[in-house]
């Protein structure tokens, strides 16, 4: 068990210490401590229902929207407690962006889906700059060529895979520091998946990135660090190359070699 990690403190973007999460009486996460740094992409893997999404949501307080949900322990962003009363949650979610499992574009134009965040956070000083942010974000998400002639059409009219890339473009548009992705490719074809993975490579180092994935090959391809969750606990956390060639815990091995359950 290594909930204590060996990361160099200075590069830690986010840290969690002894995080428990409850839905009402039911405990979904049990004592998770992890350090997320800027240099590495971190993958969360584990069987369905083990708490990956729950834990991920604690990292930008997305679970605030679930009334029964209670979080204890400490989570920091640049050393600052994100659950402190002084923390501005809207600001927090701009700094810690999230891409969900199911694409959830706003029922607005493609353009406005991207422009919304930069507008409310005052990131663009005029129409030209906003246009630039929209184009750059769509390009980075690998969607520009497909939508550049239809920016005024509704985001919901795009295919599932396009919608997901739209959501990634939307998350990038506000220039976050951390991007949390919850199975971002589960609805994408292999080409679109490859584009997202390439994007993750490109973004590595500029943002701290955490990705939840059920696809072991994807975790192996995109991440440098992997955390394996099981029944609400973090069983093992280490270098991806080590986890996939020589995991230390039997539960990890059984899961990644397909012997689970």
């Amino acid at each position, binding site marked *: 068990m290594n909930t204590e990690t060996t990361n160099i403190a200075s590069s830690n973007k986010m840290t969690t210490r002894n995080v428990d999460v409850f839905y009402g009486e039911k405990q979904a996460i049990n004592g998770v401590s992890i350090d997320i740094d800027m240099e590495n992409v971190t993958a969360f893997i584990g069987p369905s229902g083990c708490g990956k999404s729950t834990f991920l949501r604690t990292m930008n307080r997305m679970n605030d929207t679930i009334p029964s949900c209670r979080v204890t322990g400490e989570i920091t962003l640049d050393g600052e407690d994100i659950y402190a009363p002084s923390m501005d949650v809207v600001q927090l979610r701009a700094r810690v962006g999230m891409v969900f499992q199911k694409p959830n574009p706003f029922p607005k134009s493609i353009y406005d889906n991207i422009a919304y965040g930069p507008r409310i956070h005052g990131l663009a000083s005029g129409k030209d700059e906003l246009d630039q942010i929209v184009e750059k974000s769509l390009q980075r998400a690998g969607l520009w060529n497909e939508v550049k002639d239809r920016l005024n059409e509704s985001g919901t009219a795009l295919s599932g895979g396009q919608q997901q890339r739209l959501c990634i473009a939307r998350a990038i548009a506000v220039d976050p520091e951390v991007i949390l992705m919850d199975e971002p490719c589960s609805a994408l074809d292999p080409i679109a998946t490859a584009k997202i993975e390439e994007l993750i490579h490109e973004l590595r180092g500029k943002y701290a990135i955490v990705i939840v994935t059920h696809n072991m090959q994807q975790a192996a391809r995109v991440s440098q660090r992997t955390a394996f969750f099981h029944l609400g606990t973090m069983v093992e956390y280490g270098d991806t190359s080590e986890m996939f*060639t020589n995991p*230390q815990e039997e539960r*990890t091995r059984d899961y990644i*070699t*397909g*012997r689970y359950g």
Partner: protein
Amino acid sequence: MNTTNNSTEHTVKAFDSDISEMRGLIAEIGGRAEKSISLAMKALANNDLDLAREVVKNDKQIDALEEKIDRMVIQTIALRAPMADDLRELVATLKISGVVERIGDYAKNIAKRVAVIDNDLHIEPASLLPAMAQAASQLVDDALTAYATRDADLADQVCERDRVVDDFYNTIFRSLVTHMVDNPKHIGAGAHFLFIAKNLERIGDHATNVAEMVYFAVTGENIGERERGDNPSDPLYSED
């Protein structure tokens, strides 16, 4: 997790049957290589040219098995994307099939010399060769048993016991050279016996290679590099 055995089955059962088929093929190629060693030595002892030819012929089947195993491993890697212990085992299987094929080649090489060695000569040091072959063959057998039973300790022992074969080689080498100096007419046959001893020594090394891969597959760690007992003054005693 150092002595794990993969007893739990995969959720995808077909993966287990692929793996057991490959393990069966390794047992088969290993059995054939061991048999080649013993038949080659028997052909040598009895100057049995037919038997020697049979060894050469059987080597084709060993080559074919190696190819079959390689194809299967590559296909399994492509189709099943194995991870961790499974991946290590498949990579070990791939390498072991290549090493066992080489062991077969050494046996074939011994068999080929039967026809060219003048059997009427009495070259005393050559009398140690059957015992050396026995020791080398036993190493191969134990290395393959370690593979079949995923036994890291046995693999470790095989590496340790390779010294016995090396000692045989050093003894035979020295006494053969001395014999050849004293009996210049025996130099031709003596050289062949030297090569045979060398082939057996290499078989021992390859058994060690198999054992090292087994150790890695089972534990995820490399077995400590051992001092190989090489004799630097012996120009023949280099890896080939």
